[in-house]
């Protein structure tokens, strides 16, 4: 089985983003970028499946500007075999992205696509679901465990009310939640080795996909700020404030 892992390059999770003065978006110049944390979890899970003998090859794909190659190299340094970079100005909307991924899945005869559940910049939480719909493959969204069996995969999903266990027939789509695993660090030798691993370059046009946006961002604003209030020094003072000042209890 081949596993495809789509990875997104995003602003590092520890950076506090700032909205641009012209309200066109957030400041990205000279800001630390990283692999989207959920994608990193997806890469780790693919590696574990390979180490258990359930997969032969792991392909990392990223769609976006030239710098996405760095993000692909992150995945290769963790241990994936090769990369595909689909070059375009920005990360496309999830629907267009899912169409691109579908073409790659079909070209490569992939048996499992492991995505992150959510990109932490746009907070879409859509691409895996859309890819499953376009391919007609079963979907395991928000998964916290995978077990490979004869028919495909038994997975556990994190849902609002607890956990859910499903059996998916292979091939399948899955989106990784936080508890699926803890990603490894790439070792220095592996980082060096990753530089030699092949990365194929494609464009959406090569794949015949129109990535014209359907949703236009009109403006981006800071949310209203919350002010720090006061410090209390004991339980009775707090209860008094909550009862008589805030009137919430």
């Amino acid at each position, binding site marked *: 089985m081949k596993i495809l892992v789509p990875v997104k390059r995003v602003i590092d999770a520890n950076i506090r983003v700032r909205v641009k003065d012209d309200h066109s978006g957030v400041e990205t110049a000279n800001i630390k970028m990283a692999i989207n944390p959920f994608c990193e979890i997806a890469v780790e899970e693919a590696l574990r499946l390979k180490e258990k003998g359930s997969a032969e090859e792991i392909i990392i794909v990223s769609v976006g500007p030239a710098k996405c190659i760095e993000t692909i190299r992150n995945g290769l340094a963790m241990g994936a075999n090769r990369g595909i970079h689909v070059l375009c100005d920005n990360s496309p909307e999830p*629907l267009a992205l899912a169409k691109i991924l579908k073409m790659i899945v079909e070209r490569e005869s992939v048996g499992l696509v492991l995505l992150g559940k959510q990109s932490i910049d746009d907070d879409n939480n859509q691409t895996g679901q859309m890819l499953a*719909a376009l391919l007609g493959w079963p979907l395991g969204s928000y998964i916290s465990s995978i077990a490979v069996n004869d028919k495909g995969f038994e997975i556990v999903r994190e849902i609002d009310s607890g956990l859910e266990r499903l059996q998916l027939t292979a091939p399948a789509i899955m989106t990784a939640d936080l508890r699926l695993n803890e990603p490894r660090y790439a070792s220095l030798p592996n980082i060096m080795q990753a530089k030699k691993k092949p990365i194929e370059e494609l464009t959406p046009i090569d794949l015949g996909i129109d990535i014209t946006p359907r949703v236009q961002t009109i403006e981006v604003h800071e949310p209203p700020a919350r002010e720090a209030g006061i410090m209390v020094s004991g339980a009775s003072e707090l209860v008094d404030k909550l009862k008589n000042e805030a009137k919430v209890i």
Partner: protein
Amino acid sequence: MRVLVIAECEKGLLVPATLNTITAAQQIGSEIDVLIAGHDCSVLVDSLSKVAGLAKVLCCEHPDFENHITENLAVLIQSISGNYSHVMAAATTFGKALIPYAGALCDVQAISDISEVVDADTFVRPIYAGNALATVKSSDSLKMITVRATSFELTITEGGNAKVENVQSTGANENLQFIEQMLSLSERPELTSAKVVISGGRGMKDGENFKMLESLADKMGGAVGASRAAVDAGFVPNDYQVGQTGKVVAPDLYIAVGISGAIQHLAGMKDSKVIVAINTDEDAPIFQVSDYGWNEDLFTAIPDLTNALES
């Protein structure tokens, strides 16, 4: 504008976020239908038909929908989507999985987690863990949307007289089988609709100590939540997680206990009316968003607070 709202039910009860979603739908269109698909949903059909201002309640009662499988419901939605300008569901794990899936079937770019309706094509949604709010405009003729429940009031559940219509199942996807759900059972109010939420973080040290928060919550009629760190450490189950990638809550009172206040946590609770933080680190970022900060060891503070509420 004719809007379809997908109702969510669980254990035979309507998930309250459906009622917030109907409010958002009412800000878009004048004709609102609700679809409820399930195995045993006739009780709910009755109560839904009384929700003020609904035109129709569409009911698909069939075992195919017993376990709310995304694939099955999305195909059903696609089959009736031609009648609508908008299809909406709450941004719960149910809605977040369903709407993009149905969107792709209909060739629609879905819009996630809206917090405001500007007009029928234009919506506001938080991005970057709520550190920015984007106003976005869709050019798709059909809009498929998930709704941040805490940003909209509950709709009025009385006085309506919607027509009930049955719809046929479009079948079940053979490529997946439901095995089981392992639900966290709690007598306490549901986290996202509770008036008081008390959340514990890494500072709680272990799961046993959450009992202190539970008894405090019980005194206040509240729910118990947690930070990611507390869930990852196995103190409490995953469905307790509040934050960017967990649940979004906005109670009247949120008490953060031993939680530092990372942006991903704030994303899930900073719209609470009143925030209290209890933390030993006076520089913890949580104090910057708290109405009342208490720089105290939680193992002293929580018993003290519980006692103070008694007297």
